């Protein structure tokens, strides 16, 4: 059993070792006409000590992948590796992997302490060690006073923490979390997000987190894998995913974004150039592996907060007419109908002492900040 490590502030130094790996995993359900492909040739490598998130809409396969790692189901093709060992044939009770279920799945006929102790009892640990560990876990999730309560008598948020403690008690090598926060109200959710992050840091255990909430993924993860329809679309750190989405779906799913059609020009000054519908050119980033697109028309994205509204249409890279100005307290959204067609939203912070001076109906230009333009693969 791995003991929890401690550092100066309780955080564990990151080791660049692969903890969990899925290699060419495909999962199909049903036969013939009713065949459903839940996962399509998925490969990911999750590092030790990582807070890794699988992000995607319902039905994208993220929960299926989690279940394959836990051992509740077998892949139709491909393998699941744990620290380099193929565990595909191991039943769940032989895998050093624990799960926090979406509905918590607490044992109703046992107390909080009984639930937390369960995994250790199954491993045959001595009673004294189990008791000590249960107390340690209760302290970790800050639930000490509820030790001997029945699970039916505690609130949803408390049940969630018991489920967490129960899964962490046997010190698994990997912790799987299946949308554990989805049943909580907003305030509790935000609290638990911080709590989970803290726990991951403190224990150093690899967390694999499943969610459909992109905000949650962005706040908590070290890396995110965006999934849709059984495929992995992009893997990267939150910042990379946000700033440099590689595909339309990713750009759309995470945050708000603007889409433009642009023609790819030959490289200049070391960066790829694209010609916007307005005719002006600007530097753009291409996603990895996107080659030989010179001369072709691609979609590019610009985040609303990476653009600014300029007074004169000629001063901007693109131009249009203001159709709506929405005030949000911290910032203001400007909705622009482009001259070349389509809509564009600009988000600018409301700095003190600045008045935009714009009005609906004004003709305006829009400029981009540096590195704002990202090309998409599809």
């Amino acid at each position, binding site marked *: *059993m791995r003991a929890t490590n401690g550092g100066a502030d309780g955080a564990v130094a990151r080791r660049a070792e692969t903890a969990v790996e899925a290699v060419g*995993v495909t999962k199909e359900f049903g036969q013939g006409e009713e065949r459903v492909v839940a996962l399509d040739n998925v490969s990911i490598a999750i590092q030790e000590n990582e807070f890794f998130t699988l992000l995607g809409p319902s039905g994208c396969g993220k929960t299926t992948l989690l279940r394959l790692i836990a051992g509740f189901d*077998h*892949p*139709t*093709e*491909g*393998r699941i590796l744990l620290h380099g*060992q*193929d*565990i*595909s*044939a*191991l*039943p769940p009770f*032989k895998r*050093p992997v624990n799960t926090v279920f979406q509905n918590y799945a607490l044992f109703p006929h046992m107390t909080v302490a009984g639930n937390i102790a369960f995994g250790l009892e199954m*491993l045959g640990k001595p009673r004294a060690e189990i008791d000590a560990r249960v107390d340690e876990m209760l302290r970790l999730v800050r639930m000490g006073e509820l030790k001997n309560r029945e699970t039916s008598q505690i609130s949803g948020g408390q049940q969630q923490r018991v489920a967490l403690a129960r899964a962490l008690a*046997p010190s*698994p*090598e990997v912790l799987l979390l299946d949308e554990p926060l989805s049943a909580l109200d907003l305030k509790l959710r935000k609290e638990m997000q911080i709590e989970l992050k803290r726990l991951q840091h403190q224990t150093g255990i690899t967390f694999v987190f499943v969610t459909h909430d992109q905000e949650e993924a962005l706040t908590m993860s070290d890396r995110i894998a965006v999934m849709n329809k059984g495929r992995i679309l992009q893997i990267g750190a939150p910042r990379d995913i946000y700033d440099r989405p590689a595909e339309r779906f990713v750009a759309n799913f995470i945050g708000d974004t603007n889409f433009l059609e642009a023609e790819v020009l030959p490289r200049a000054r070391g960066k790829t150039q694209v010609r916007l519908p307005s005719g002006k050119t600007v530097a753009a980033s291409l996603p990895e592996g996107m080659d030989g697109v010179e001369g072709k028309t691609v979609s590019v994205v610009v985040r609303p907060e990476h653009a600014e509204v300029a007074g004169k249409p000629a001063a901007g890279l693109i131009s249009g007419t203001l159709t709506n100005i929405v005030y949000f307290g911290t910032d203001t959204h400007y909705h622009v109908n482009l001259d070349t067609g389509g809509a564009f939203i600009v988000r600018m912070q409301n700095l003190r002492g600045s008045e935009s001076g714009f009005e609906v109906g004004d003709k305006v230009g829009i400029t981009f900040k540096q590195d704002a333009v990202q090309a998409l693969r599809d």
Partner: protein
Amino acid sequence: MAMAGTERASLAASEHSAAEIAAEAERRDIRKRWLLSAPALVIIMVAASGPLLIVLIYSFLTPGDYGNVVWRFNTEGWVGVVLQKDIFSDQWQWVDAHLSIFWRSIKLSFLTTLATVVVGVPTAFFIATRPGRWRDVWLFLITIPFWTNLLIRTYAILDLLRTDGLVNTTLIKLGIIGKPLQLMFTDFAIGFGMTYVYLPLMVLPIYASIEKLDFRLVEAGYDLYANRWHMFWRIILPLVKPGIIAGSILVFIPSLGAYVTPRVLGGGKNMMLGNLIELQFGQGRNWPLGSALSITLMVIVTIALLYYVRVTSKERRGRD
């Protein structure tokens, strides 16, 4: 957690494809399920289902002199269900006794089913429209008699219908009749007894149907119809039909094969199929005939069941 050394070795060299692993796991699961079912299956096949085949075989054998059979092929068992040879004229003729028993069984079963429907629908409706927790109480009350001994309930009816039983003594005391009525040992007694005994079996499925009713539909319908009776006939009854059909099967089938009730309330004279069958294994000493009659009963029951399945699946298909 460290993995056992042997596992590590076998995994490192895993040649099994993912499909093989998945298939093997599924196979193991199915094998386990068959093993778990085995005790129940064996017990039932040995002490309930299996012997049915023996009945079929025995129906084609020759009756022995003191009961049991002689292992010689013979179709007399089957023939004897409806035909017999006259002792004197050696002519084939209908077995009147058997035919009247068949007729009584079918007639009484139908009448019982009808009676339980007529009485059961209002009762089920009443229970289903009781408020909240009272409903459970009424349900409980209608279920208790069902779980008490069939014999006791039949016997209670006997007590009631005897010449010096409650019905007669009350009627005489009230001056409605002068002499006690002969209620026992009649077809009426059997029919009444069966209705009494099987009523809960009709009420429960109908109740289940009514409970699922959305009364708002009924209210909407009331706007179209002048009085409650119309509303009941046109709207509620059709919606409750599945419950009535289920209840009918639950009543008709046991009625057909009734043994205790006709024996207690009908005496030796008014036999039903079940009693006729028993006779062959007792005084009648004609096991092949008894076997043939049993198979006949089973066939009729199976036909009724298949009819029920067809009607319900048609209903279900019609609704989709």
